[in-house]
């Protein structure tokens, strides 16, 4: 196997192992219900993590996505409440808006040579602030089209539901895989992650690529916001606080290097499912106090990362000799 695939293999192996351990304790973990839940409950996270993966692959970071998701939900809810527009039209408007927002951040990052961490941090404040300015209330969405979206699922054998948003997430991951690994844009993203100076000399159009990267992340955050609004049938300005950090953790567990230049979109999917698995396990267990929940989540995260590092080192050592 090509050594560059090792991190991905390690991620998948650990995920499989974790599932086996969970299932040994709670056999129900193998049911299609749990599988369906994993996909549905993490759909928004999976989508936004695809955008985050591309950003991180380029050596950047996007802290604004959690707020953008919240803004999207509020925007959709308020538009549907106050105007007669069809949800699809609102979706289109929203995606234009969030893509533009991402592009603007990318432009700032490039033109002012400011670190992405800071620009997107300001973006995070701005998007949530904008959500507040639309409404400080939680706004329910009551639209026949939403009911339709919500009820669109395939009942798997064993009563598990394969929902529309779960499928959208899987499709987005596939789309992200093509973008990152099979296009020239993707190659430029990896190149930027390998080093901006070198990428420039290789002929990467740095300005255009940077703007496109953050625009893509904005698009994904917007799409994730739509999925989240379908998931909760509402918009709420306080929603998804800290989701950017969860997404980053998922990307890292998925085997992408935070320094950029190496990683896989598919790994991110596994990372997201791993986070979901941890969550599910803790709920199944149901005995942990609030504080132990936090501690255990952190420790499991650490265990995953260390296991991955260990596996990686082992296989690299083996491939040398």
């Amino acid at each position, binding site marked *: 196997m090509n050594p560059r695939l090792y991190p991905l293999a390690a991620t998948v192996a650990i995920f499989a192992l974790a599932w086996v351990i969970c299932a040994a304790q709670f056999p129900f973990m193998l049911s299609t219900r749990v599988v369906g839940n994993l996909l549905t409950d993490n759909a928004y996270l999976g989508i936004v993590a695809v955008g985050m993966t591309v950003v991180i692959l380029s050596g950047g970071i996007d802290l604004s996505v959690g707020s953008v998701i919240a803004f999207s939900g509020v925007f959709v809810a308020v538009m549907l409440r106050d105007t007669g527009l069809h949800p699809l039209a609102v979706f289109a408007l929203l995606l234009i808006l969030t893509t533009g927002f991402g592009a603007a951040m990318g432009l700032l990052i490039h033109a002012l040579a400011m670190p992405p961490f800071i620009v997107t941090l300001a973006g995070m404040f701005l998007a949530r602030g904008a959500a507040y300015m639309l409404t400080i209330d939680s706004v329910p969405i009551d639209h026949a089209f939403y009911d339709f979206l919500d009820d669109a699922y395939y009942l798997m054998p064993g009563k598990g539901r394969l929902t529309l948003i779960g499928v959208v997430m899987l499709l987005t991951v596939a789309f992200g895989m093509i973008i990152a690994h*099979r*296009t*020239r844009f993707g*190659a430029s993203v990896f190149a930027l992650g*390998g080093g901006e*100076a*070198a990428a420039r*000399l*290789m002929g990467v159009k740095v300005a255009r690529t940077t703007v496109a990267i953050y625009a893509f992340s904005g698009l994904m955050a917007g799409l994730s916001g739509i999925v989240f609004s379908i998931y909760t049938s509402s918009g709420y300005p306080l929603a998804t606080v800290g989701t950017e950090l969860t997404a980053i953790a998922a990307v890292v567990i998925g085997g992408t290097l935070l320094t950029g230049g*190496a990683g896989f979109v598919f790994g991110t999917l596994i990372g997201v499912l791993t986070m979901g698995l941890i969550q599910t396990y803790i709920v199944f267990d149901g005995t942990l106090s609030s504080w132990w929940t936090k501690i255990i989540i952190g420790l499991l995260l650490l265990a995953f990362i260390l296991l991955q590092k260990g596996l990686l080192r082992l296989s690299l050592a083996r491939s040398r000799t």
Partner: protein
Amino acid sequence: MLLSIRSLTKTFPGTRALDAVDFDLAAGEVHAFLGENGAGKSTLIKCLTGAYERDAGTILLDGTEVSPRSTAEAQDLGIGTVYQEVNLLPNLSVAQNLTFGREPRRFGMVDPRAQRRQAEAMLEGYGLDIDVSRDLGAYSVAIRQIIAIARAVALSGKILILDEPTASLDSREVETLFGVVRGLRDQGLGIVFVSHFLDQVFDLTDRVTVLRNGQKVTTERTADLDRVRLIEHMLGRTLEGEVSGTAKRHRAGQSWPEMLRFEGFGRRGHVAPFDLTVGKGEVLGLAGLLGSGRTESAELMFGLVPAQTGSAEDQSGTLDLSSPRKAISAGFGFAPEERKTDGIVADLSVRENIVLALQARRGWARPLPRAEQRRLAEDYIRKLDIRTSGPEKPIGELSGGNQQKVVLARWLAMNPRFLILDEPTRGIDVGAHAEILRLIQDVTAQGMSILVISSELDELIAVADRVIVVRDRRHVAEITGAEITTATIVRAIASSDTEVPA
């Protein structure tokens, strides 16, 4: 004229790197670009290819004015370039690097199989047998350099620019490269060739342009020049005792008291166990082909990768060489081959880069007094002729050769008893080259022992008292004294073809 540059000017804060330089390149010629370290060669190239924004000046390509504002535009104009610091992406595969920006596509998507095939085709004729789907970072500097050349050649529809492409190549690779370049010339390309190896310049090029301090000194036909005049143009003075293939320092009959002894020193997967003794004041040379394990031998001795077998000892007993810090406190020093990643600390000043190792040895609590730091820095700036506007200039803004000199200065300032120099003169101009070899003689006269790794056999022959030949990660031969000649070394290296190591 294929390419005409008129009064190109470029200023950096504190430095006028290029001062109204004119330059003409004809189709079907190889044009050498010469000058001391910091003369402005790389800057001119970068201005030409849009990597730097120029302050003034015009560029005419085929008689029409062009003004590439990014390297991508330059590539589209048919200018392929190998920059001085090999600028490829170590995190991408070799194939991706080679086809970057021109990936073969199917249904709008990159086709990895075609990409691999294309990459392999591009590498044909360079004598490399590597897996193009591996990450570039897995390969040594030299291999990366060849890959960069292959990429630039493929990109160059009209012009090929090579900024010190041969700095870490050995003679075999250089011959291959020259074959390729001559072929392109015969196809009518214009080729710019920058090198500090004058032999190569005389061997390959048709015309020479010399820069000094950012100004053009002259352009002449190579055939009309001789070595001495060329060096005069470059330095603005005559050079005594220039090191050439014929000059040979020979300290025959001299013996060096044993200072260090490595026994069975090795590590699985890196270097097979070897024995080595180092005499006080001796200069050892390490010769071998690319990837033969010279750098890895040095890394082992310096504790960068700890040895698994064997021991190192001096008179007082066994030495602990399990980490660079331990090696340093045992009196070792190591100037690495990849100065950009392992040598310089780019944002820090020349002064800080010079005192860094010294300060690290003293510990954080005993800072070197500021005056002492300045004295040291100014001392070495003078001794090694480092071209900088002052000791406070960030080292990242120095020219490549001058950065190399600063890294050397760092280790000379430590005054170690055993100093390992991996390709110490890579990218260094003739004047400084002679200076450094003289310096090596000086310090060894005061008792320092030196291990020099070099792909340039002439250099080894000139300075080494003993040459160890490395092949397939094994120390296979030792050549001493008067036997050190090009012929003997080449024979020792080449015998690998007949003799299969166990």
